[in-house]
């Protein structure tokens, strides 16, 4: 089939997928042993209190009405109200989102950079000791629980060396980066790295990096194993291609040949793998944010779980699900564009 047909089909496919996801989450939340509100109070509240909360949250209506309201609300961007204080879940998620985004981008960047570099070195020293060491590193890094690695790094760099902060996203004693303000025009992304630069505050930029370093390093190292392996295999094949040998025969420098010639071709699969790793990234983010008290969606989720705030949990899971669907759609489309064989 043609690219166009595939794109349309794939996009259309996403709609029922998201729909199934939303419905599943809805049903699961109401199929809990007991109902969400009672579980929230751990069955210790009086019926009056339970009824009051149900009314506030619209959980006293018949199931199909709730379902309809749920879907309608999603279209409007309304994810329900928190059981803690009835504030809108959507805005809570919205404010926690940039922190996770920043962590995700930095971690993925580190994972790719480390993965590419080590993968290249590994392929060049094929089957020699250096190669084995790097491969073992890749396997071990994947096997380390991300929170364990995080704690070890916290221990070394935070507690023993006092070089880096142990947790949090920014120095609590100073104002967080606020972005660009010209007169009454204000623009901020929520990403402290960018916002501090927009505001021209280099000191805050440095502070941001200090807090960002350990969490993203932790998550990045755990993710890089896959990229090491992928790059190594691809580079090994690419380095055998004719134009690489021809380049070597012209006496071009090693680095030119490796990075300018071979890597360009090996890079593409890395790009698509990035998308596939996204799910792992989210899972890892939950654990990393908990370890480093990073105020993102992951920590928000755990928070809400501890508080037994089921409406908020439902909201987060929905957001996660939609996120993943969109990313996997993007990855599939990108892959189809780049590799015509997949569309068949």
């Amino acid at each position, binding site marked *: 089939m043609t690219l166009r047909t595939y794109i349309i089909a794939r996009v259309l496919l996403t709609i029922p997928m998201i729909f199934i996801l939303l419905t599943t989450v809805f049903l699961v939340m109401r199929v809990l*042993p007991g109902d969400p509100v009672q579980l929230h109070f751990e069955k210790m509240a009086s019926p009056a209190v339970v009824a009051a909360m149900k009314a506030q949250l619209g959980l006293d209506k018949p199931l199909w009405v709730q379902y309809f309201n749920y879907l309608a609300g999603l279209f409007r961007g309304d994810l329900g109200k928190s059981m803690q204080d009835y504030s809108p879940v959507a805005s809570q998620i919205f404010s926690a989102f940039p922190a996770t985004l920043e962590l995700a981008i930095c971690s993925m960047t580190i994972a790719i950079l480390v993965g590419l570099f080590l993968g290249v070195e590994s392929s060049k020293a094929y*089957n020699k000791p250096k190669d084995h060491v790097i491969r073992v590193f890749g396997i071990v890094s994947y096997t380390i629980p991300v*929170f364990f690695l995080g704690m*070890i790094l916290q221990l070394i760099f935070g507690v023993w060396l006092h070089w880096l902060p142990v947790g949090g996203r920014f120095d609590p004693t100073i104002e967080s980066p606020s972005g660009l303000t010209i007169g009454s025009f204000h623009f901020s992304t929520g990403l402290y790295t960018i916002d501090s630069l927009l505001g021209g505050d280099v000191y805050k930029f440095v502070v941001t990096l200090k807090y960002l370093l350990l969490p993203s390093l932790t998550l990045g190292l755990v993710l890089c194993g896959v990229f090491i392996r992928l790059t190594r295999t691809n580079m090994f094949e690419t380095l055998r291609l004719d134009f690489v040998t021809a380049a070597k025969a012209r006496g071009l420098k090693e680095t030119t040949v490796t990075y300018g010639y071979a890597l360009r071709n090996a890079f593409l699969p890395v790009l698509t793998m990035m998308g596939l790793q996204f799910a792992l990234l989210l899972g890892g983010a*939950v654990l990393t944010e908990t370890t480093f008290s990073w105020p993102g969606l992951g920590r928000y989720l755990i928070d809400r779980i501890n508080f037994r705030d089921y409406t908020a949990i439902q909201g987060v899971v929905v957001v996660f699900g939609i996120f993943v*669907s969109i990313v996997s759609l993007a990855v599939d489309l990108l892959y189809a564009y780049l590799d015509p064989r997949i569309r068949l």
Partner: protein
Amino acid sequence: MLSSIFPGLRSLAKRGLAGWLVIFGAVLTGAIVVMTLVSPWISPHDPSALNVGHPLLAPSSQFPFGTDDVGRDMLSRVISGGGTMLQVAVLSVFVCMLVGVPLGLFSSYTGGLVDRFASLIMDSVYAFPGLVLAIAITLVLGRGVINMSLSIAVVYIPSYFRVIRSQVLSIKELPYVEAANAAGAKKGTVLSRYVLPNVLPSIVVVATVNFADAILTAAGLTFIGMGVLVNVPDWGWDLTNGRRLLPSGSWWVIAFPGLMIILLALGFTLMGEGLSELLNPRLGEEGGK
């Protein structure tokens, strides 16, 4: 029995690096399993006993792994702490295979709408972050060994499904399968006698990876507080506990349990790597001298 193991080992070793990986991984895993099984007899102290020593003692000759904040001996806790995790891992892999393998076989062999539909669901589950899914299911089911195993199992069923499916799809069209069908064999027979044996090696490889992942996911769930509630020594629990103690620099409370988790998962991973290499040797790779 031992005499039949040795020739097996020797043939594995002959296969080069991959064989050694399998041996090493198996030994590592086996050692940990054995240690856990005999822990009641070999741990120097009762792992749950409080104040066996002063709290937060650094490793010493008396307490090689130190003590935690309520004076429990870390060495004993490390020796005995694998039980829950192993139970969860074994149970979840078992359930996973029980559900995933037949599902994969049946769906991909049948083909058509059934296959499309099943694949769709499996792909959606597969794409979803495993940990979050496990968290959600544990929320629904509640805590406990069985529930945790079930939630982890659900996360990994798609892995089996996909691997089996790709294998079956390539075997399905082969002449000897067609011949069996033409001779009127029942679908079940074809699947179990012809298809399954060929798919078996891949299942084994996926299973080892599954084990490793199950252990890591179980550790993760415990870390965020969704672990098993019973007061047994557990490495994951020690990590959560140790987190509070981090600012005091008591590294031994997390280092040793964490190391054990890594070793256990590593054992399975190495076995998986080795097996995968043995069963699907990579083309064009030379055994470097």
